[in-house]
């Protein structure tokens, strides 16, 4: 791993120029000739039957070109999995949450489109609704879907080892319940889509985490063959898991365009984007830990209840996959898992940063601090005691391919002088907290688990690289270019990247499940090495040397030990064209996953879960004002084991972003509800952290050099992103002596809790 020329360099992002000059084209910056503006009519009821829809007046409005309703729906219902297709992307018979899509119009201006919506009349029969996920499971509760008795849409039960024996044998046991409220990704770009249908072909421009998954779902719901749909690459204004699925707006724009033969662009308002794309699952996690008196974990028990809202979305993942994260960070002798996802008449919950992993990590890591306190063990030490190491096997048989968890824990502890006494704070309460977590790097997505790439050299030694890898801002474009440049021995500036286009680039898992660096990076590396081999062979012929003796970088190759015998790649490429052997690289990477591991069927959740795991650990220092309840985050030190930092600046940026996300989730973010309606669906009342809330952040890169990662690299910030949550809550616990078991924690919650504690002390 020495002698790296490009990997490890903090080069500027390859698409940064477009972003700083305003040239970057997001979906809404495209405006093909004749484009119409679309708008969507939404249900005002949380649960109702649709008796009829009258669109005749809207159709007659001057400027309206098309109106569509659920009647137009020709394909199969939408669902992430073949057995979870429960949603018509335009409502047909029923609506199940406030905001569900009922009709859509396309018109010559946004104003006309909005006016047309007001002319559509819908005859609803109001039905009883249920908003509380626990009440939804009770007998007699309103039922959302016929296929899901008691509104239980998905369930996951499994256990490993002898939990009961371990529980009995333990010196100490504790069980607590934790809850996280629904939050939103709040990508700064509200969701939207541009669709253009002509000549039998549908073109789509929309922010997406996978153009291939999007094309597949559109093909199903529109009943069009895949090759007749092209999902274009666009710049994307943030994803965080929230651009993973295919949305009703996609269906509406496509259907409208098919109906009138003109391009149609739909832009969701901020409120629509917050409420009607996806939210993070609100989740109640009841967790038990059984430990020996010196802090070794013997048993973990988890019972998850996830409020899924109206449709299934990625629900089974949210209650299944966190298991793969919880079993791989802190070892345990046994584990029992129960997850249930409940339908309610609230917005649809889906994937977001860690996908259920955060909620579960919060429960585990905060419960661990409660246990550590009772056992008289330092929170850092109890984590180091249980931290999984390289080569260890988790309970399911999944192996830790490389782990920098212990190093990350030590590093972030060191950055806040963990073992020294806390500075005193003038009437305020000071606290320190720590958390450590593990993260999967891709998982079993069937045929979509692997990533392929190809590249072609041009006559001037430049090259075009084709990969399906997606960049929603994470830096994946730069990552794949650095990997290709390193493998090929060419300058970064000689690479033109064509990516994330369903038509011209090869299959890729997409930028979710933290797979981009590990899987897509490896796919690109394989294609680059293939082309490199061709170049070496050509050079060996030209220089009359053995292939094994050819070396070089920066666009030139030479004979080892005789650097005067050299040739430029351009000359080789031109020669190769002349003799009919053009330099075309191709390659693919499939992670070493056990594809029989079935993560929903009890008894079948065994084997390698992911190609590798990344790790993160975080310490936080907070100051609490006991009068106002205000918590100030003073410092966060976040250590991420990313295997190898392909671009350290990009990694730091990802870590910083994860820290602020965590601060938002712990202290600010969460919807407040009146039945099925959120009371704060705007950025003024749903507060995401601003620049004023950025504390001192120390980003620490830990490099465990994964044996299978491209140049040793793995995912770069999501593991630390989990740990931020518990580090912050544990810091507040350290400061106040109160463990907050509900997120977000408001100043009023803090005041109330401190008062209760005082009363207890007096009483």
């Amino acid at each position: 791993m020495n002698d790296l020329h490009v990997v490890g360099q903090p080069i500027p992002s390859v698409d940064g120029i477009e972003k700083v000059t305003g040239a970057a084209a997001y979906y809404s910056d495209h405006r093909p000739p004749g484009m119409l503006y679309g708008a969507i009519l939404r249900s005002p009821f949380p649960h109702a039957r649709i008796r009829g829809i009258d669109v005749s007046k809207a159709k007659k409005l001057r400027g309206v070109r098309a109106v569509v309703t659920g009647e137009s729906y020709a394909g199969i219902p939408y669902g992430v999995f073949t057995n979870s297709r429960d949603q018509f992307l335009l409502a047909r018979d029923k609506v199940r949450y406030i905001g569900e899509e009922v009709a859509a119009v396309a018109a010559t201006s946004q104003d006309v489109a909005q006016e047309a919506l007001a002319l559509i009349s819908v005859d609803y029969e109001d039905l009883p609704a249920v908003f509380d996920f626990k009440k939804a499971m009770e007998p007699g509760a309103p039922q959302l879907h016929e296929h899901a008795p008691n509104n239980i849409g998905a369930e996951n039960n499994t256990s490993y080892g002898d939990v009961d024996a371990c529980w009995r044998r333990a010196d100490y046991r504790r069980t607590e319940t934790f809850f996280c409220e629904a939050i939103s990704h709040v990508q700064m770009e509200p969701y939207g889509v541009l669709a253009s249908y002509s000549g039998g072909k549908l073109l789509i421009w929309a922010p997406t985490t996978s153009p291939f998954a999007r094309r597949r779902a559109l093909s199903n719901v529109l009943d069009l063959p895949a090759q007749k749909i092209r999902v274009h690459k666009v710049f994307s204004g943030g994803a965080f898991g929230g651009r993973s699925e295919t949305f009703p707006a996609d269906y509406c724009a496509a259907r409208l365009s098919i109906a009138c033969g003109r391009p149609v662009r739909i832009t969701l308002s901020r409120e629509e984007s917050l409420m009607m794309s996806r939210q993070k699952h609100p989740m109640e996690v009841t967790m038990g830990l059984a430990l020996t008196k010196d802090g070794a974990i013997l048993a973990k028990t988890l019972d998850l209840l996830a409020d899924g809202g109206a449709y299934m979305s990625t629900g089974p993942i949210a209650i299944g996959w966190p298991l793969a994260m919880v079993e791989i960070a802190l070892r345990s002798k046994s584990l029992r898992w129960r997850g249930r996802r409940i339908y309610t008449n609230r917005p649809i919950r889906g994937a977001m940063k860690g996908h259920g992993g955060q909620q579960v990590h919060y429960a585990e890591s905060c419960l661990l601090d409660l246990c550590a306190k009772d056992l008289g063990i330092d929170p850092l030490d109890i984590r180091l005691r249980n931290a999984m190491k390289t080569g260890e096997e988790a309970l399911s048989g999944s192996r830790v391919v490389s782990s920098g968890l212990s190093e990350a824990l030590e590093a972030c502890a060191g950055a806040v002088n963990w073992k020294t006494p806390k500075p005193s704070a003038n009437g305020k309460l000071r606290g320190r907290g720590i958390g450590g977590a593990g993260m999967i790097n891709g998982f079993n997505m069937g045929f979509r688990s692997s990533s392929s790439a190809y590249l072609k050299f041009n006559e001037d030694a430049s090259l075009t690289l084709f990969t399906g890898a997606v960049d929603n801002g994470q830096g994946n474009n730069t990552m794949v270019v650095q990997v290709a440049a390193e493998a090929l021995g060419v300058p970064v500036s000689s690479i033109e990247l064509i990516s994330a286009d369903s038509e011209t680039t090869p299959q890729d898992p997409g930028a979710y499940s933290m797979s981009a660096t590990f899987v897509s990076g490896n796919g690109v590396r394989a294609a680059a090495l293939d082309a490199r081999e061709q170049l070496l062979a050509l050079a060996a012929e030209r220089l009359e040397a053995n292939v094994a003796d050819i070396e070089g970088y920066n666009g030139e190759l030479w004979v080892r030990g005789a650097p005067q015998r050299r040739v430029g790649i351009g000359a080789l490429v031109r020669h190769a064209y002349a003799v009919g052997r053009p330099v075309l690289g191709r390659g693919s990477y499939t992670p070493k996953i056990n594809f029989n591991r079935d993560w929903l069927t009890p008894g079948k959740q065994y084997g390698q879960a992911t190609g590798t795991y990344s790790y993160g650990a975080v310490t936080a220092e907070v100051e609490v004002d006991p009068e106002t309840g205000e918590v100030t985050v003073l410092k966060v030190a976040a250590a991420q084991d990313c295997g190898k930092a392909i671009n350290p600046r990009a990694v730091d940026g990802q870590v910083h972003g994860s820290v602020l996300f965590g601060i938002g989730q712990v202290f600010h973010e969460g919807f407040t509800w009146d039945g099925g309606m959120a009371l704060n669906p705007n950025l003024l009342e749903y507060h995401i952290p601003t620049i004023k809330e950025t504390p001192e952040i120390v980003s620490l890169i830990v490099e465990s050099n994964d044996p299978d990662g491209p140049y040793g690299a793995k995912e770069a910030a999501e593991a630390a992103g989990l740990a931020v949550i518990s580090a912050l809550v544990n810091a507040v616990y350290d400061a106040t002596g109160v463990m907050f078991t509900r997120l977000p924690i408001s100043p009023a919650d803090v005041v109330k809790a401190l008062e209760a504690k005082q009363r207890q002390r007096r009483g």
Partner: protein
Amino acid sequence: MTEPCYQTIELEVNGEPHDLTTPTHRTLLDVIREDLHLTGAKMGCNKGDCGCCTLLLDGQPVLSCLTLAVECDGRRVETIEGLAENGQLHPLQTAFLDTWAMQCGYCTAGMILSAKALLERCPEAGVEDIRAALGSVLCRCTGYVHIIEAVQRAAAAMRAPVQV
């Protein structure tokens, strides 16, 4: 539909004069994006809450989603597209690029223009000034750390004597 009233206005945008006839209820953001095709300004909320749409009006940052186009008659507008001169990036653009001060890039125009107004008003701006000036622009990706660093770097570069 009630027919909108139209008004003809003169806007100087990035140094170039434009005569435009627009319905009076349209915002500066819509006119800049839809009529002048300067799409670097972004819509994040259309309500004044996010700052993605920030433009400079006579050198001062404004939320263009809350500004009516007709209010800007006879005034000078700067957008992100006007910052580079003769193919040379503005020091803020260079600094954002070098420090990875953008990830998805959706907030970048608002950030850079807000910072430009700050540095023109206050070349010695420190971290607290930067936090205050950029406080109305939200970024969900970066955690703001590299953004603060970029503005500091640009400030230093702009103060440095010009190299001949």
